[in-house]
């Protein structure tokens, strides 16, 4: 029986993000830990003193990949606090923007960050040489998702036109029709990419550990923009009861706070949404779930990437339907933003961003200045579950060669698509002798 001591550390080259520590003696795992050393930025502290119309512009800077999701959670929190009613048009456009972000993020993760593991290379760059056609297809899908958010949100990263009450600009009907056609044209390309992932899906480890999944859920739609908090262990909670679900705590080996609910830990993200909301998926998304053999409730965290791919089909199909709804009613550019009176109050809101359920909770004074803020981010909710997975997974792979343990531990963390300052997709495993 061998001794294994692994230290996965970024210190020498890349700050923060994640560290993996594994110590095993006589083939028995004594310690396995996922650490987060990201530099703290203190958003909740400096949010104090900002006005209601600035809050979304400040808090979207939490994350470059899901800045749209933060913008929407922030606006919804402010709108709840001020009692602002949104038009149906605004809500539909917001849903489309949420889908655009989901698409962009999922294509990036599955296409650029997971695919290299499936093809046994270190990054997408060598694939440009060996598989140029497929890489260019993925790039084109990524560009389409970005064009979609540029059109609807003004800008993909840190949106420019989204304000409490609605928008400062909206697309034209002609632009929506063009987007509709591009999405239709993209369906065969998504199918091709999904076929390639399917052909390689057997390389994803078959590891399962029963856990709790938390996501937004709704009886009206596949919930990413709105809903109540749901758990695969049963039960739903209104969003304003989120503290009962998240139960944050601090550990000395992480600058990100951890969470727990019913069990030791819970998981959020695409797989959580899939597990809770499978019934509400669009037809093509369900068809692909069938091809991948993915059914609810799936407890293999590696399948999160597959759930992301399935969600891409859902995003495309639902967006086409939303465009049809908007075009049928006609766009109303005169009433793109609801007027409101500033008042004191507290607003709590959630959206389900690419990596999982996200909460923003603000308190405003009577001048509309934020006096207290709390943001609970999906990856923070996953850190604890990654740790619990490590404890279950490490003993099952401890007899493998070191390089293989290294890759499998990296792949497990990557499957969660963690977004520690924004994303932590590169892990450097160093063997500590």
């Amino acid at each position, binding site marked *: 029986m061998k001794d294994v001591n692994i230290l996965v550390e970024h210190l020498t*080259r*890349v*700050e*923060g993000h994640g560290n993996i520590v594994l110590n095993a003696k006589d083939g028995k795992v004594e310690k396995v830990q996922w650490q987060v*050393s*990201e*530099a*703290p*930025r*203190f*958003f*909740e*502290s*400096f949010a104090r*003193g*900002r006005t209601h119309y*600035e809050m979304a512009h*400040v808090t979207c*800077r*939490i*994350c*470059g*990949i899901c*800045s749209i999701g933060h913008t929407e959670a922030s606006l919804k929190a402010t709108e709840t606090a001020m009692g602002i009613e949104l038009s149906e048009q605004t809500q539909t456009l917001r849903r489309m923007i949420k889908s655009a972000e989901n698409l962009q993020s999922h294509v*990036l993760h599955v296409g*650029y*960050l997971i695919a290299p593991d499936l093809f046994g290379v*270190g*990054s*997408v*760059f060598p694939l*440009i040489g060996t598989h140029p056609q497929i890489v*260019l297809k993925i*790039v*084109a899908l*990524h*560009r389409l998702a970005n064009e979609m958010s540029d059109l609807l949100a*003004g*800008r*993909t*990263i*840190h949106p*420019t*036109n989204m304000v409490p009450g609605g*928008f*400062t*600009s909206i697309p034209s009907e002609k632009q929506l029709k063009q987007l509709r056609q591009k999405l239709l044209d993209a369906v065969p390309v998504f199918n091709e990419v999904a076929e390639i992932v399917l052909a390689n899906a057997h390389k994803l480890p078959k590891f399962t550990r029963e856990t709790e999944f938390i996501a937004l859920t709704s009886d009206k739609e596949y919930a990413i923009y709105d809903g109540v908090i749901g758990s695969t262990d049963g039960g739903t909670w209104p969003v304003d009861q989120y503290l009962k679900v998240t139960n*944050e*705590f*601090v*550990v*000395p080996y992480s*600058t990100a*706070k951890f969470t727990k609910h019913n069990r030791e830990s819970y998981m959020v993200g695409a797989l959580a949404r899939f597990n809770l909301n499978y019934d509400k998926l669009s037809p093509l998304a369900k068809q692909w779930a069938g091809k991948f053999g993915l059914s609810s409730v799936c407890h293999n965290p590696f399948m999160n990437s597959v759930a992301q791919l399935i969600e891409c089909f859902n995003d495309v199909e639902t967006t086409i339907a939303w465009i049809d709804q908007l075009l049928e009613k006609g766009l109303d550019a005169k009433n793109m933003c609801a007027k409101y009176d500033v008042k004191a109050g507290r607003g709590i809101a959630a959206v389900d961003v690419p990596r999982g359920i996200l909460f923003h909770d603000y308190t405003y004074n009577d001048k509309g200045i934020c006096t207290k803020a709390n943001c609970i981010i999906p990856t923070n909710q996953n850190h604890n579950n990654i740790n619990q997975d490590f404890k279950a997974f490490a003993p099952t792979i401890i007899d493998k060669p070191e390089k293989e343990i290294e890759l499998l531990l990296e792949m497990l963390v990557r499957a969660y698509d963690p977004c520690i*300052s*924004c*994303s932590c*997709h*590169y892990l*450097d495993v160093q063997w500590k002798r």
Partner: protein
Amino acid sequence: MKPRVAFFDFASCEGCQLSVANLEESLVDVLKLIDIVAFREVMKEHSDQYDIAIVEGSITRPMDEERLKKIRANANILIALGACAHLGGVQRMANQWTPEENKKEVYGIANPADIADSNRFFEKPRQKALDEVVKVDYTIPGCPINKEEFAKVLIALLTGRKPPIPDYPVCVECKKKENVCMFTIGKFCMGPLARAGCGAPCPTAGNECEACRGYVDHPHEKAQTDVLEKYGLTVDDIMRRKTMFTYRYVEKPKDGA
């Protein structure tokens, strides 16, 4: 030999590196001109041998300063990428409070010993721009950066030219786009002070400029104050906006920092 380029990040949202990835097909072309030897966001391989270091993020703790100094020592050219590297980012607003006050507000539920300065993860967190720690050769401003401007700067460096970062205000680009002035529709805009080069995306979308690219070299602050007064905006409004992306310009040293 192609120039070797490395990307690094500190405290940030990584949106600027994502903007580079968002060059999409153009990035595939750029890759023909350079060798990327480190880019944590997308690649596993890593080398400490590089000519150009492109660094995103603000510098927070002693451990971050150490790492930045090593990067500086390895690189011939160091480029600050985006508002966090350039100015300290929106997170620099946290410098209005002491590190202990910030820790209490955010990690108040923790055991105090766990988040004390003796834990290097939590050691003396304070936001700085890169050039407050090391020499910076070029800056690509913005939150996020303008990806086309990034490509232009890179091409200028590869062809031995000075990178083209404008020194005139956002109003110039805004006027070119024939936008209605934000002030005339009752909004509060930093355009007259802010450095152009972004293409004025915020006013073009109907929203005010927040000066994420910092100020031009010689801003007419008095004129800006006159404009704000003309439109009935208060000193509080002005100061609040000046602490959003540009707190660096008004920050005063603070006890406990």
